[in-house]
């Protein structure tokens, strides 16, 4: 698929949804923002479920909205709703067949591969009423895929699920673009989901897009922390599994040449993964500390100091060469250590502070 470009307007109860945005044709793009900011409506406009929307939606060569509007059933989008919306008069296999029969194009998405990827083989002959929330959502994703979509739209598909179901399904979603060649636009108001699966992030507030960019950049930006939440601010490190120490139950992850040690992960060497380091878990030192239990110590330079208005804290962005890291320290520490932009510092990250749940494709 070529890119998706959207330039639309839709009056809502409390505000006007007004978005002009181009979406990537690759990977997972998350639409992130507080509840009721218009992100679901934007998704519905793209899918063709909001007849009152004005403006243009263009997907590759096809005009979806504006000029001659293309009805929803011709757009070939896979839409996964928060409430799954399986057809109650059909069993699981019937729901899948419904999509297969109506596929308007062959994108090379095979039924067997889909059933395996979503782990729904054992559910095929069950009535949909008997499925758990997580099972329903997996069937719903499989059903959408079998429509041979050129684009998957997901509207908070995990919002109603418990933590275990969420942890099981998120990696499956993160895998869709690679496995089936379909880009995904994923709506959520949960930052942990953003951190785990996105390649790109589009942030929204009261009907407008306020920022967009690659996920690592977006979560580092102090100016967006009103939205991302200070507590959750942090950095995403992209790395590969470099080795395991079975005796010590440690796994070493290589992030662009820097080694990070973390508690043992059941993942093969060479597997790429994403580590999330929260800013509040990073300690700074001006000399290399010795006799300390912290396993990960890397040196770098301070890129940016962002003191927070009326608080005790300063957000510090550090360049480690291979990656950036974000730290949250007190104003008093910045003063006492005489930290300025350009200062040489050591960043300390405890191995136990890696959030293991935030690892797509890896069993924690």
């Amino acid at each position, binding site marked *: 698929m070529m890119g998706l470009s959207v330039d639309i307007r839709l009056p809502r109860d409390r505000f006007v949804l007004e978005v002009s945005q181009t979406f990537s044709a690759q990977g997972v793009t998350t639409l992130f923002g507080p509840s009721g900011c218009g992100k679901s409506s934007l998704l519905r406009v793209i899918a*063709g479920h909001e007849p009152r929307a004005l403006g243009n939606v263009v997907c590759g060569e096809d005009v979806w909205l504006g000029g001659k509007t293309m009805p929803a*059933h*011709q757009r070939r989008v*896979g839409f996964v709703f928060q409430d799954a*919306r399986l*057809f109650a008069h059909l069993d699981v296999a019937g729901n899948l067949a419904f999509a297969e029969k*109506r*596929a308007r194009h062959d994108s090379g998405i095979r039924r067997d591969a889909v059933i395996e990827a979503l782990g729904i083989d054992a559910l095929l002959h069950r009535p949909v009423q008997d499925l758990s929330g997580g099972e329903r959502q997996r069937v719903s994703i499989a059903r959408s895929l079998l*429509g041979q979509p050129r684009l998957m739209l997901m509207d908070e598909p995990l919002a109603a699920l418990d933590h275990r179901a969420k942890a099981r399904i998120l990696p499956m979603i993160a895998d869709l673009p690679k496995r089936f060649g379909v880009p995904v636009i994923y709506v959520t108001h949960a930052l942990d989901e953003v951190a785990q699966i996105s390649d790109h992030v589009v942030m929204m507030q009261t009907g407008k897009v306020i920022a967009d960019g690659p996920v690592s950049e977006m979560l580092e930006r102090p100016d967006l922390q009103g939205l991302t939440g200070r507590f959750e601010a942090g950095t995403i490190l992209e790395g590969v599994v470099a080795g395991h120490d079975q005796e010590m139950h440690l796994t070493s992850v290589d992030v662009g040449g820097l080694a990070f040690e973390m508690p043992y992960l059941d993942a093969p060497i060479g597997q790429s993964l994403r580590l999330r380091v929260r800013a509040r878990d990073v300690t700074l030192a001006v000399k290399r500390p010795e006799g300390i239990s912290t396993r990960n110590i890397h040196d770098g330079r301070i890129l940016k100091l962002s003191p927070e208005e009326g608080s005790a804290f300063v957000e510090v962005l550090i360049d480690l060469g291979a990656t950036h890291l974000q730290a949250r320290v007190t104003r008093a520490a910045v003063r006492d250590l005489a930290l300025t932009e350009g200062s040489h510092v050591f960043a300390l990250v405890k191995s136990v502070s890696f959030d293991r749940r935030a690892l797509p494709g890896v069993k924690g």
Partner: protein
Amino acid sequence: MSPDLAPLWLSLRLALVTTVVLLVIGTPLAWWLAGTKSRLKPVLEAITALPLVLPPTVLGFYLLILFSTNTGFGGFFLSLTGQSLTFSFTGLVLASVVYSLPFMVQPLQSAFEAVGRGPMEAAASLGASPLDRFFTVASPLAMRGYITGLVLSFAHTLGEFGVVLMVGGNIPGRTKVISIAIYENVETLNYAQAHWLSAVLLAFSFAVLLVVFTVNRRFPVRVI
């Protein structure tokens, strides 16, 4: 003595034809009412429900006037078909359709409203055209509404009396339906015949309802 069952067959034929006609025109009307936000909706709902509250004689009286060959509608029908609507089977069917309309439309409308937009949007994104998703998603999900609507329309038409009397009169084989026949038998003190026809109608109605409620258990209300 053997009973004269012709009025029963006529009633059954009337009820069947009426129900089929109601299915055809009630379905799109119920669908529109279930989905529309138009300001006309309450007006149409009120008109559809009128037969529930109007005395059949009032309804029959207006229909009689409408069907009269002196009016535009009745005259138009006469010139079109060479047949008068008053005191004819066709007239009875038309009158019964109006009379039983709410019994088809209301259960269907509620059923369609219960299906809601959700499954329809899902079907659309899976590539189903509006007609396709109506027949393969909305209709099966609204099955209970269909069964209720069909049975109530049929039963209500079968038991129709006042409207038939006003519009159709009492012509054997043409407009003399079972309720009229029973009335006539009672008036002429022919109680044996009245007993026969009443018992047949009672047994038949009970049997139909019994079958329906038994079948209906196979279509439990589905909540997802």
